[in-house]
Each structure stands twice: as structure tokens, then as C-alpha cells.
């Protein structure tokens, strides 16, 4: 059984800017997997997508998509992949329906032939089918773009930051749709800058500056990257942050939602009383402190600091 995607030692530097986008990048993605690339802008996600969709050539290394070589078997790959680029990539001046029909024709198929695959998504767009794509909201555009990428029943689906700039509700709906597609047997590679979306993938790769920080299931990554951590809050959060950073046992401290996360130095003898005394002496009131487990964003920050 072939892997859906197999990447070996890919390297890519952009000649104009000299920016190193990917460095010795290897990754295996199984057939039928929903795989997430998690990382900020500049991590190399888009470059990787473009290499895998045969849009650009790597400087070094090889990759296969559904068993086809990205360099030699370009036209085979183009028949079986669906791609949704990061930039909004529909014809703004064509209507919802016209866009869909056009992309269906480009892939030598028709909307009717593959309607069952997109039906669940397209019913939401149906009321606006005569509206021009440029006049849709962010969430709706995303759904239409997904329909257009799916219309030829691709075996592998590439989604480059489909949820960026979309509100949490639309994002949740979008991930529900991906779950359904996965059940229909499509392998999906999706990238996102939102760490919380990592939990919705079968496996994830954390990327930073063209390098893989870690690859595993969501739970696996959390499990192996735990460090002693505290969550703290008090009446004056900003002052608390600066004070905590000066505390001798602090490896790192940063705000995290309504609390601050404090990573303790490894091997430093820590006693809770000592921290409480330290803070009370600095005039903090209503201090709440509890031990916590690292979340995915904590892990990312930790791994990122290791790279930098």
C-alpha cells in the first residue's frame, strides 16, 4: 500500500531572496489520513504545498503523491489532486455556480457527476448560487473554494490555510466538513496557524522556519513534551507577568488566555510557598496558582525556543 504522500529530504531556497524555505524536510503521510501542518507564517507550509502540487521544484530531494513522482509524473499528479491555495482563488466576478461549473469543466468532469461528494457543503451555498463569489463572506468563500477543489473527486486534497481569517464558528464547521471527507476516503493535508485546530487532525507536524519540530498524533506530541508548568493569575496581570519573569525558578513566562503560564527551570528546587511569598512581597493580591499540563501552544513555544 502506497502512502498518500511521501517526502524525502526536500530542500528549497528561493533564489531571489535567498530565503531558506525548507531544510532537509522528510515526512510520510498514510493513505486516508487527515494530516495537519501546524506553524506560523514563514514556516514553509506554502512552499511545501507548492512542491507537492507540482507548482515548484525542490532544489534537492524527492517526493511522491499517491505514488507518483512530483517531478517526472507531473500530469498524473495533476489529475488526482485537489488544491486550495492560501490566497482566495476563485473568480470574484463569476457567480457561485459559474465558478463551480468552470472548475468542474477544467478537470474534465461535471458538477452532476460528482455532486454527492460536495452535496453536504454545497447545500449551504445553494441559496446564494447566483451571487458573485466576490460578495460572499469569508466563511462562504472558503466553502465554495473547497467545493471547487473537490469537484473532480481528488484522491489527495491539499488545503493551504483554509481557515485563516475565518471566525471560530465557521472554522469549526469547516473542520466538521473535513471529517466527513476523510470518512469518504480522501487523504487530506491541511495547514493552519491556529494551534487549537491541531486536535482535529489524525497526526500533525509542528513546523518552524522550514524545519519539522515534531511529528506525531496530537496526544503523542503533548505526552512527550511535558514540562513542569504553572498557571497563575492575580489582580494585576501585566505586573504579574513582569514579576514572574524575574522569579529565579522561571524558565519562561507568557500570557495564555486569562492566565499566565510559567515554565519552571529543569532541576530547580521549587516550592509553592516560595513563589507565593515572592509575589505577596511584591504586593500581588488574589493570587491563584495551579499546576497544569502543557497544551499544544505551550509545546510549540517550547520547541520553538529550542530552535531559536
Amino acid at each position, binding site marked *: 500500500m502506497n502512502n498518500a504522500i511521501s517526502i524525502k529530504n526536500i530542500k528549497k531556497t528561493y533564489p531571489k531572496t535567498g530565503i531558506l524555505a525548507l531544510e532537509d524536510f522528510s515526512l510520510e503521510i498514510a493513505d486516508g489520513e487527515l494530516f495537519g501542518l501546524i506553524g506560523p507564517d514563514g514556516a514553509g507550509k506554502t512552499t511545501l504545498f507548492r512542491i507537492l502540487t507540482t507548482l515548484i521544484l525542490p532544489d534537492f530531494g524527492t517526493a511522491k503523491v499517491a505514488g507518483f513522482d512530483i517531478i517526472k509524473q507531473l500530469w498524473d499528479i*495533476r489529475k488526482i*489532486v485537489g*488544491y486550495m491555495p492560501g490566497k482566495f*482563488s476563485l473568480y*470574484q466576478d*463569476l457567480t457561485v455556480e459559474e465558478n463551480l461549473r*468552470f472548475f468542474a*469543466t*477544467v478537470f*474534465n468532469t461535471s458538477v452532476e457527476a460528482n455532486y454527492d461528494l460536495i452535496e453536504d457543503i454545497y447545500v449551504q451555498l445553494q441559496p446564494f448560487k447566483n451571487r458573485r463569489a466576490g460578495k460572499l463572506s469569508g466563511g462562504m468563500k472558503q466553502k465554495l473554494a473547497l467545493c471547487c477543489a473537490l469537484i473532480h473527486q481528488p484522491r489527495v486534497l491539499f488545503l493551504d490555510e483554509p481557515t485563516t481569517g475565518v471566525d471560530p464558528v465557521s472554522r469549526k464547521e469547516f473542520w466538521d466538513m473535513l471529517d466527513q471527507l476523510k470518512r469518504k476516503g480522501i487523504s487530506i493535508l491541511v495547514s493552519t496557524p491556529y494551534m487549537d485546530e491541531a486536535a482535529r487532525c489524525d497526526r500533525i507536524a509542528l513546523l518552524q522556519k522550514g524545519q519539522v519540530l515534531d511529528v506525531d498524533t496530537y496526544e503523542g506530541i503533548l505526552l512527550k513534551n511535558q514540562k513542569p508548568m504553572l498557571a497563575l493569575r492575580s489582580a494585576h496581570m501585566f505586573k504579574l507577568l513582569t514579576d514572574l519573569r524575574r522569579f529565579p525558578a522561571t524558565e519562561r513566562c507568557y500570557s495564555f488566555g486569562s492566565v499566565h503560564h510559567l515554565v519552571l527551570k529543569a532541576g530547580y528546587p521549587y516550592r509553592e510557598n516560595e513563589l507565593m511569598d515572592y509575589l505577596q512581597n511584591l504586593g500581588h493580591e488574589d493570587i491563584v496558582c495551579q499546576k497544569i499540563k502543557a497544551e499544544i501552544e505551550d509545546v510549540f513555544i517550547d520547541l520553538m525556543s529550542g530552535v531559536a
Partner: protein
Amino acid sequence: MRVLTAFIKKEFWHVLRDRRSLTILLGLPVMMILIFGFALSNEVKNSSVAILDFAGDDVSAQIIHRLNSSQYFDITHRLRRFDDLESLFRQNQVRLGLVFPANLQDDLIGDGEGAIQIIGNAVDPNTTNTTIQYVSAIVADYQKELWQTQEIPYQIDVSYRMLYNPQLESAYTFVPGVMTLILMLLGTMMTSVSIVREKEMGTMEVLLVSPMRPILVIISKAIPYLVLCFVDVLIILLLAYTVLEMPLRGNLLLLLLMCILFVLTTLTLGLLVSTLVESQQVAMFLSLVGFFMPALIFGGYLFPIENMPEILQVISNAVPTRWFYNILKNIMIKGLGFEYIIKEAIILSGMTFLFLVIALKKFKIRLM
């Protein structure tokens, strides 16, 4: 084939829904024909002329009378001295000065040869040039009549240039020039912008990651604009024929075929531009400055190419508009047949082929 049809349909939607480009596409030819046709011909009409008549005989009186009754000239000053003429020119009050030497009639009858001096205000060389030609034509007319009534062939200097425009209708002589410019501008700019727009929007990425071959993308981009440019050709010809009352000389079919050839040249040039640039702005800038300006300067309708320095004459050979302008002049104004434009047609075909080959080579099947 189905893909091609769908793609072409889509291109037409783009054009028809973008009111701005549609206005340019259809409005520009109308506007330019009317402006060039009327504004410029009006300027030539009623040119002010100063007369310095040292002859004061029958011949000079006849010629002056003919000038005066023509709609192109207003005799505004009758002078006695050369100095007066010079000061009139300095104050920019007259466009032409006509000097009839003493004993004009005697010279003409005695030696069979007479001379009239025409002094033109070359501040505006094109218009002045045209008016000088008109004067020559009027003189030639008069001379012809003299031939008919007299037996001895008198001769007054006549410009050969008026041969193909004997009615002295100036308006439609601009039509070939305007047509060349419009097709150059629209063909190159519209196609390049329309492809580059897909790059900017990100839709090109999706098209590339599809089984659609590059050649198909190119053809489907070219066809709608070929049709639109051809519509423009028809609009221009119709306007020229009805509004400017231009007679249709030459073979209409040949004319249309040559127009299609030139549109193909500009389209392939546009395709070439689009493969080289990444933004609509650059595409537009390149089309305007890189192609439209040279087309204007080296096309032959603003500045006569024969008067240019040799190096510029050589450069002008590379400008497609120059050759198309020749074709149009030969067919539309002179009414000549295919044998007179073979060279130009071959050059244009060669250029088209060259542009197409480069464009196809440069059109990447990948992003970079």
C-alpha cells in the same frame, strides 16, 4: 474542446461584467476616431494665410481666388514687404505665407516655368505640412486647367504626395494610424492584464494544478480578445465609412484578413508580456511604455520615418505597428492589392510566430 468552450465563455463573462474594461474596449475606438477625425481636420480648415503678391497679375489673382474660396484657407493678411511676413510669423498669427514673385505670368508664358514660394510656420510641422500640401494641390488643379486651355505645357511645382488623396479630405487619412494604435493598445494590454490577473488572484495556481495544458490556457485567453479586437476593427471601419465618409478602396476581405493578422501579432505580444510579469500594474505599464509608446513614435503616422536618424530608422523595423500601418495605407488609402503588401504581411507573420514561440517557451507549467 468542452474545456476550451467553458474557458472562452468564462473569459467573455469577465469582460462583459467589468464595465470599465468594456468601456475602454468599445469606447476607445469610437472616441479616438471622432477626436482624430474631427478635431484634427478642423484645425487644418480655416488656416490663416498671408499673401505677399509681387506679381499682381492674372495668375496670382487666380490662385489667390482659388485659395480664398477653399474651406481650408482664410486669407487674413495682404502684405507689401517681406519684413511684415516675418513679424506675422513671430507673433504666430499666420500658418502660411504665400509669395508670388514679380513677373509670374510672364515667366510662365515665356519660359514655361513659374515659381511660387510657400513659407510655412513649422512650429506645428504636421499641420503645416498638410496645409502646404493643400496649397500645392490647389496650384496643381489650376495648372491642370491651364493645360486644358493652352497648348504649351506650363509647369508650376506640385507635390507628388497628394496623389492618393486628391479630394483633400484629411479626416480619414488618420484612420489607418488610429486603427493601428488602438489594436496595438487593446490587443497587448488586455490580454496581458487578463492573464496576469489570474496570477494575482491565485486562480492561476489552481489552473496549473489541473490537467489543463498550458497551450489551452493560452488559446482560450487569446480567442475572446481576438473576437473583441475584430469587433473594434469593424466599429472603426463603420465609423470611418459613415461618419468620416471614407471611401472603401481596396479589397475589404484582404483588409479584414490583414487586421486579423495584426491582432494576432498584438495578442501574442500580450501573451509574451504576461509570461514575463507578475502584477497587473507592471503588465499595463509595460504595454503602455514598452509597446504603445514605440508604436506611436515609430509607427510612421506621427513622425515620418524617412526623417529620422538612421539608427532610429533601424529600430523602427522592429516595431510591428510600422508594418501594419503600411499595409493599411496601401489597402485603405491607395486601394492596392496583396502583391504590394506581401513583404509587410510576411514580416508580421514572422513576428507573430516568434512571439508565440517565446511565449509558449516562457509559459511555465510550474510557478517558478
